[in-house]
Every structure is written in structure tokens, then in C-alpha cells.
């Protein structure tokens, strides 16, 4: 079959490129999720701080980046980042246009978006910790850092796993939009393969199937992680979680 040959690993096949592109999608999503985790933790802390200015800043961040289309944010980071890099280059004596590498721009854009969702996930997880445990920790004289490390962090991570699973799925699908910056991730490679062979249907179906494999695999991994994190919890409490 001609279409199998096109998807295969032979000299006319796109198989190897599609696999490499899938790995690129995973890499850029994982980087984005890590960036988003840092941003999300900071924003969640700001929103929980009770300081009016910090709470307002946190609210603006989550409202803007959850309310504006992802594609626009990617344009902002990619074009805006490139013109920033160009002006820095000019200041250092380099003439001409400097582009922001599309991997960095893409991971940053999807990371900022996922940060706005992760902030809400972390905030919800923190609020779910029973007040009694925090009081108990203070009562036996734990100072803030120790309380954060021993009581808050482990519980927030456990309670945040289902929400993080959702954010990961969102980011995985958002990463397809990075294709507009030309990064050779799964969407872009399917597009290039489709265009150069004129087999649009075949390659978009193949790309779609690879995305389905990624999303269903990661669903399993997050379910496993959730079970593992809850293994010391009473069964009734797990049912509620």
C-alpha cells in the first residue's frame, strides 16, 4: 500500500520524522508544564497572601491568561519576544532581526497559559488542607519553612494530581498551536508531510492518532500517580477525592 509506505520508515516514509515530532511535542509540553508549575506556585501564593496588591496582580494574571485565546498569547510571546531580542541585539551592536528560538517562545507561551490554570489548581489544593493540621504544626513549634516543607507541600502535591492531569492534557493540545511558529512538533510535521505529499487526510489522521496515543497514555499515568499518592489514605477519603 502506498499510504503505508508514506507512513513507514523507508526512504520515502515519514515515520521517523513523525516519531521525532511526537518526542518534540512531549519535550515542549513538559518544559511548558515546568515553567507553568513555577509561575503557578508563585501566583497561587500571591493570591493566598491576603495582601491586596498581590491578590489583585494574581487575579489579573489568571483572568487574562485564561480568558484570551491561546493563539494570541503565542503570537504575543513569539513576535513580542523576537522584537525584544532584536532590540537587545541592537543595543549590543548587532544590526538586523533576531528571532526568539521557537522552542523557547512556544514553551514560554504554553507555560504562561498553563501557569494560570496551575495557580488555580494549587490554590484549590492548599485550601483543601484541613486547618487543624496547620494549627497542629504551629502548635508544636514548626516555623514557616518547616511547615511548608513537611505539611503543606506533600499534601498540596497529592491533592493537586487530578487537576495537574487536566492541565497537562490542555497543554498537550495547546502545544499543537506552537506549529504557527514553525517548530517541528507533531502538528507542524503532519502539516509539512501532508502538504508535500498532497495526502492531507492520511497525515492529519496519523497525527491525530499520535495525539490520541499521547493523551490516553498520560491519562493512565496520572491515574496511576493518583492511586500511588493516595495509597496511605483511608479508602473512604479516597472516594471523596
Amino acid at each position: 500500500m502506498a499510504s503505508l509506505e508514506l507512513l513507514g520508515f523507508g526512504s520515502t516514509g515519514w515515520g521517523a520524522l513523525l516519531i521525532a515530532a511526537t518526542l518534540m511535542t512531549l519535550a515542549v509540553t513538559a518544559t511548558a508544564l515546568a515553567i507553568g508549575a513555577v509561575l503557578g506556585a508563585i501566583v497561587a501564593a500571591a493570591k493566598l497572601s491576603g495582601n491586596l496588591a498581590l491578590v489583585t496582580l494574581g487575579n489579573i494574571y489568571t483572568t487574562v491568561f485564561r480568558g484570551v485565546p491561546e493563539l494570541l498569547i503565542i503570537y504575543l510571546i513569539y513576535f513580542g519576544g523576537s522584537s525584544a531580542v532584536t532590540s537587545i541585539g541592537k543595543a549590543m551592536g548587532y544590526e538586523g532581526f533576531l528571532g526568539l528560538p521557537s522552542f523557547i517562545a512556544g514553551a514560554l507561551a504554553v507555560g504562561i497559559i498553563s501557569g494560570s490554570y496551575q495557580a488555580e489548581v494549587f490554590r484549590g489544593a492548599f485550601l483543601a488542607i484541613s486547618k487543624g493540621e496547620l494549627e497542629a504544626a504551629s502548635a508544636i513549634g514548626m516555623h514557616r519553612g518547616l511547615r511548608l516543607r513537611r505539611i503543606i507541600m506533600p499534601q498540596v502535591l497529592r491533592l493537586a494530581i487530578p487537576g495537574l492531569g487536566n492541565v497537562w492534557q490542555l497543554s498537550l493540545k495547546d502545544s499543537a498551536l506552537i506549529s504557527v511558529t514553525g517548530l517541528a512538533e507533531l502538528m507542524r510535521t503532519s502539516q509539512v508531510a501532508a502538504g508535500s505529499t498532497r495526502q492531507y487526510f492520511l497525515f492529519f489522521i496519523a497525527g491525530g492518532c499520535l495525539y490520541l496515543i499521547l493523551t490516553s497514555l498520560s491519562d493512565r499515568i496520572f491515574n496511576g500517580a493518583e492511586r500511588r499518592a493516595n495509597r496511605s489514605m483511608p479508602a473512604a477519603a479516597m472516594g471523596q477525592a
Partner: protein
Amino acid sequence: MDFTFLASTMVTLLKAVPTTLILFSLSIFLGGLLALVIVSMRVSGNPLLSGFAKGYIFIFRGSPLLIQMFLVFYGLGQFGVIRYSFLWPFLREPMVCAVLSLALCTAGYTAEIFRGGIRAVSPKEIEAARSIGMSGPLLVRRILAPIAFRHALPAYSTEIVLMMKSTALASLVTVWEVTGVAQRLISQTYRTMEVFLCAAIIYLVLNFIILQGMALLEYSLSRHRRAAPQALKA
């Protein structure tokens, strides 16, 4: 900040708002209808129908909307059956392809939201309806659908906001809605921040209006939950 540039950008972008709204309302309407079909298959109890519905939901929720949109826009024209059929004059239009793929995609998410609403209907309410002899379409119309819709409303309003953001993807199949026009402005002027600001304000205002409308709907549908006047309390 250059206010004349901001104002002219705003005017240009506002001209694209009707296209965004048409995309949005058509795909919400068609997607909602399709979701009703999918969810009734999903809860029908027939393994063949519910299997199909499960597969549909898995495929459309598990893959990016962009690849679905490209599949419809570029993929369908490849087949002679479609290319030479009466459907082609419609499927050749980017707008039709965008609405079609947005509706197909949202139907998967919306079906799951509706299913959650149906599951939240208490079996006692169904039993009560059955015991007074209500069954079939009447039961669905009077008991199941209103209660399920009310339960599903908060999640459904989130999905509607997500749809508003998803309309941005239509720019990639050459529909000139707000994001598409913004992208063109950015590449002409290289003034990313200003254009972004204007476009962002438009989307935030649209989403704000939608969320307020949904909150109003939720309020008007939950009259029975509000505190009763003192005199009526038993």
C-alpha cells in the same frame, strides 16, 4: 503609549467581531444539538450506540482542535466523492469548515458535561415521576432535562468560554475573525504589545458578557433554592 494607533487598531479589530460572534454562536448551537444526540446514545444502554458515543468523545476530546480543523479543511477535499458532490460548494468555504470542526469538537466535551448533569439527577425524582405514570419523552422533557441542565450549567458556561477562545483557530483556515486580523496587524506593524492589548480586551469583554449571561440564567433557574419568604417557611 500611542493612543491614535491604539484607537485605529481597536476600530479595525472591532470590525472583525461579528465574524467571531457568528463562528461562536453557530458552533455552540450546532455543537449543542449534536451533543444531545451523542449523550442520548451514551446513556441509551445499547452497547453499540454507547460504544460509538464513547469513541466519539475519546477522539474529539483527545486530539487538538487544530488537527481536526485541518482534517476538515484540507482533508475532505481530497476525496472525489466529496469533491464532486453537492456538498462541495459548502465544504469549500473556510467558514463552513471552521464551524463544522468547532461544532464537532465541542459536541464531545458538551456531551460529557450533559452526562454529568444527568447523573446528578436524583433517582428518587425519576421514581416519583414514574410512580405517577410519567414515562418516555414526557419524563425527559418535564423531569430529567430541566434538572440535568441546571446541574450542568456551571460546567457548561466554562465550555462556552473555551469555545469563544477556540474560535481564534479559525484564523488558521483563513477566516478573518479577531485573532486573524490581529495577527495580520502584528505582522504589518510589528507592534505586538498594542495589538495584543486591544484584541485581549475584546475577548475579555466578550467572555465577561457570556459569563454574566450564564450567571443570570443560573440565577433564574434556581428560584426554588433561594431562601423562601419568612411567612412561607414551615
